[in-house]
């Protein structure tokens, strides 16, 4: 096992390098340029635009730019944002806490809803509870977050006036008042994201538990007279967790990467809104930095998932 992990880690480095090269080339080829706004502004002569392009080295060959980027990255220099004219790491660090809080909480909410509901629904397939849970899940993933977010705003901010819909990082209060305000503004975005995620998790959990619950050893355990709760926790859930772990590992990078649509709706200053505004402004260094960190997390979490499989099902062997 240890040898296996070591080998995977060693492979991870070149594979990340490969991913970074592909990302870089893709961004360099993608249409649009960071100084587009200057082009539509007749007050700015083309020479300034050219000077900026030269200054930021945009007209150099892609491969040279990649090597330059890589060398800088290895020294801890994340690049320089064209749009804000400051260092990229500064921009990203300002936003990490908010994203971790909002998206992280929504993932926890999703699991907290999906695990019990999914397991309980699977234990009594086609019961009333199962039908209701399913219907809610279907509604959950039929409606996109841009829609549910707006619906919540209309209900809770505009009609009832209970919750604010503009997310502020700097609430002018301290202590409990601050915590309360922060909590109030976070309810809607966390619910929108969390319930959307919970809807699909619920379906997966239900399906996974259904797969396991009819296996022979579960029947055996039951026939041995173990009580139902114990059977479910010890034998069923553990084995049903494999797909759930896979899904959670797939979602974890998003806790860093943010949720573009939801952050946009509630004006949450997270990584997702940074990424989308960078993309719309063609601010390549920012896009590259965010996607590269995201790529690292994808690789790490998928590796973690592989390791957890072995722990959940000791018969899985790695060679």
């Amino acid at each position, binding site marked *: 096992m240890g040898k296996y992990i070591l080998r995977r880690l060693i492979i991870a480095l070149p594979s990340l390098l490969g991913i970074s090269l592909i990302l870089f080339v893709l961004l360099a080829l993608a249409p649009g340029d960071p100084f587009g706004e200057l*082009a539509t502004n007749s007050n700015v002569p083309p020479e300034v635009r050219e000077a900026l392009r030269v200054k930021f080295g945009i007209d150099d060959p892609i491969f040279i730019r990649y090597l330059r980027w890589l060398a800088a990255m290895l020294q801890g220099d994340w690049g320089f944002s064209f*749009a804000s004219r400051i260092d990229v790491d500064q921009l990203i660090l300002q936003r990490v806490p908010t994203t971790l809080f909002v998206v992280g909480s929504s993932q926890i909410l999703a699991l907290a809803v999906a695990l019990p509901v999914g397991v309980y629904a699977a234990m009594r397939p086609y019961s009333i509870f199962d039908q209701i849970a399913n219907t809610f899940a279907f509604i959950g993933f039929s409606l996109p977050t841009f829609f549910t977010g707006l619906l919540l705003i209309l209900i809770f901010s505009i009609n009832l006036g209970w919750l604010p819909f503009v997310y502020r990082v700097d609430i002018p209060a301290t202590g409990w008042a601050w915590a309360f305000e922060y909590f109030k503004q976070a309810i809607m975005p966390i619910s929108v994201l969390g319930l959307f995620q919970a809807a699909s998790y619920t379906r997966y959990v239900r399906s996974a538990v259904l797969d396991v619950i009819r296996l022979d050893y579960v029947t055996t355990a039951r026939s041995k007279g173990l009580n139902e709760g114990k059977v479910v926790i010890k034998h069923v859930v553990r084995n049903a967790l494999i797909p759930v772990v896979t899904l959670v590992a797939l979602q974890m990078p998003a806790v860093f990467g943010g949720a573009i649509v939801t*952050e946009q709706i509630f004006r949450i200053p997270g990584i997702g809104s940074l990424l989308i505004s960078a993309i719309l402004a063609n601010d390549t260094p920012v896009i590259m930095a965010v996607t590269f960190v995201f790529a690292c997390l994808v690789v790490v979490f998928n590796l973690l998932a592989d390791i957890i499989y072995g722990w959940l099902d000791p018969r899985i062997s790695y060679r």
Partner: protein
Amino acid sequence: MQERELRDLIADVKTGRLSRRSFVQQMIAVGLTAPMAGMMLAQSGVAMAQTAIPYKPTKAGGGGLLKILYWQAVTLLNPHFAVGTKDQDGSRVFYEPLAGWDQEGNLVPVLAAEIPSKENNGLTEDGLSVVWKLKKGVKWHDGMPFTADDVVFNWEYARNPETAAVSIASYKDAKVEKVDDFTVRVTFSKPTPFWADAFVGTYGMIIPKHLFADYIGGKSRDAPANLKPVGTGPYVFVDFKPGDIVRGKLNPNYHMPNRPYFDNIEIKGGGDAVSAARAVLQTGEYDYAWNMQVEDEILTKLEGAGKGKVNIVETGNIEFIMLNSTDPAAEVDGERASVKTKHPLFSDPAVRQAINLLIDRASIEKFIYGRTASATANFLNAPEKVRSKNTKFEFNIEKANAILEAAGWKKGGDGIRAKDGKPLRFVYQTSINAPRQKTQAIIKQACQKAGIDVELKSVVASVFFSSDAANPDTYTHFYCDAQMYNTTMTQPDPGFFMNQYLSWRAANKENKWQGRNVSRWQNKEYDEIYKQAEQELDAVKRAAMFIKLNDLVVTDNYIQPLLRRPKVSAVAGNLAVPLSGWDNDLWQIANWYRET
């Protein structure tokens, strides 16, 4: 409108028969800017009006927190790098120019003690120099005095191409020198009728020499003050998170008495225009929201909540359709839409005329934009008619059909007209933006009824408006038959604006599609008049030439104006906000206050 008519109008303003405001409105209607109109009046001896901006509070402070919402967030705070209006507005909270432009084209002094004129010896007869007197006793936020050295420094800073300032055009052809501690002289290399560009308005904000002197040229990006502005403005910098929020607090040493009213200010960014409107008009969570590109129907509904109102000020922005005069399908010398080709359909004037008749401007205005735009066919009707409701645009499907029929375009079996085997079918593109897509739908349907088949195409704005030479979907490539966008005229001098139809400015492969003549429309007469206008010193004669230029463009039907787009914002009911269409939204932020 001829020069003589212009002179008559100016004479009317002089004698008081015509108000300054309606003169300015007429000039805007013929395609000029309010600042240009103001310059014409000033040169003809009508003094700039002393704009009195209403302000009631009798002491500074006490107003609490002013919450402003921008649906595009401020990304930087150095006014010389500020490209978008969001960044210019963010900078305007902390930095100030010598003077700003009000809605009627008057210069309003800010850091200047007075506006230069012939009477105060600020202006010379030859139009070669301007002398600005600076306000005394102004202090930077860090306590240093504001002097002529700072003003001269801004010129050195911005004109250096290495600095890569977006304000370079206002400074590179001038020379600025210090006369004494509170006087500077701006000298031009050639007589310049439009003298109020440097140090005025959007590109005129002044940054402090003592903090930026070491960061001129290539080092400009390293200045710490780029992110922590120290200005002369009514609010002192507190905090800035690029792409999210800007915060400031009251400047106790502000150079205008009893100002500002608010103790704190914040500009929050992000989201979309509709929800920004909701936050001001419906819930009152915010006090001011910028640039309401929202269907009027929604705005009206939101106003019903009674929390705020929509504020509309006139600008020179025009939404228009451009028909390609070249053939986007044919490739000549490695580029499409080459000026060596002619468009197969639009080269027939009857087709252009028919399309003009098929644009239902009245409905587009009424049902899509409402108060947030006004239909216009022609920048160039006689002034008294321009603002009236029955301008000369016409929507007439039968007439369009008749014109096409007469020109030999006959309907085929599929209902599409054709002539010499060429079907009347074209592609019409624009950027992605809900009102634009609805406009497309309305025009497409009318064309269909006249036997013209229109294929709609929409390109995401970040690509459409980019200067990427490799991408064929940008508006400057114009590899398409027709396109629609909004041309902005924030530059006070229309000279910049009008060069977009010069033959030698045609966008092509050679200039990497940077040429400003996107339609590739070519006209010898236009080129000649433009050359004359460049030399012309007399502001009135020059204005008459610009009007003639506009006339040439529009009557040829390659360029079809649709709507004038004013500046629309949402304002809390009790907030007094002096706005101007010729300067930034926050140009008078020091004079904002809440009615009690």
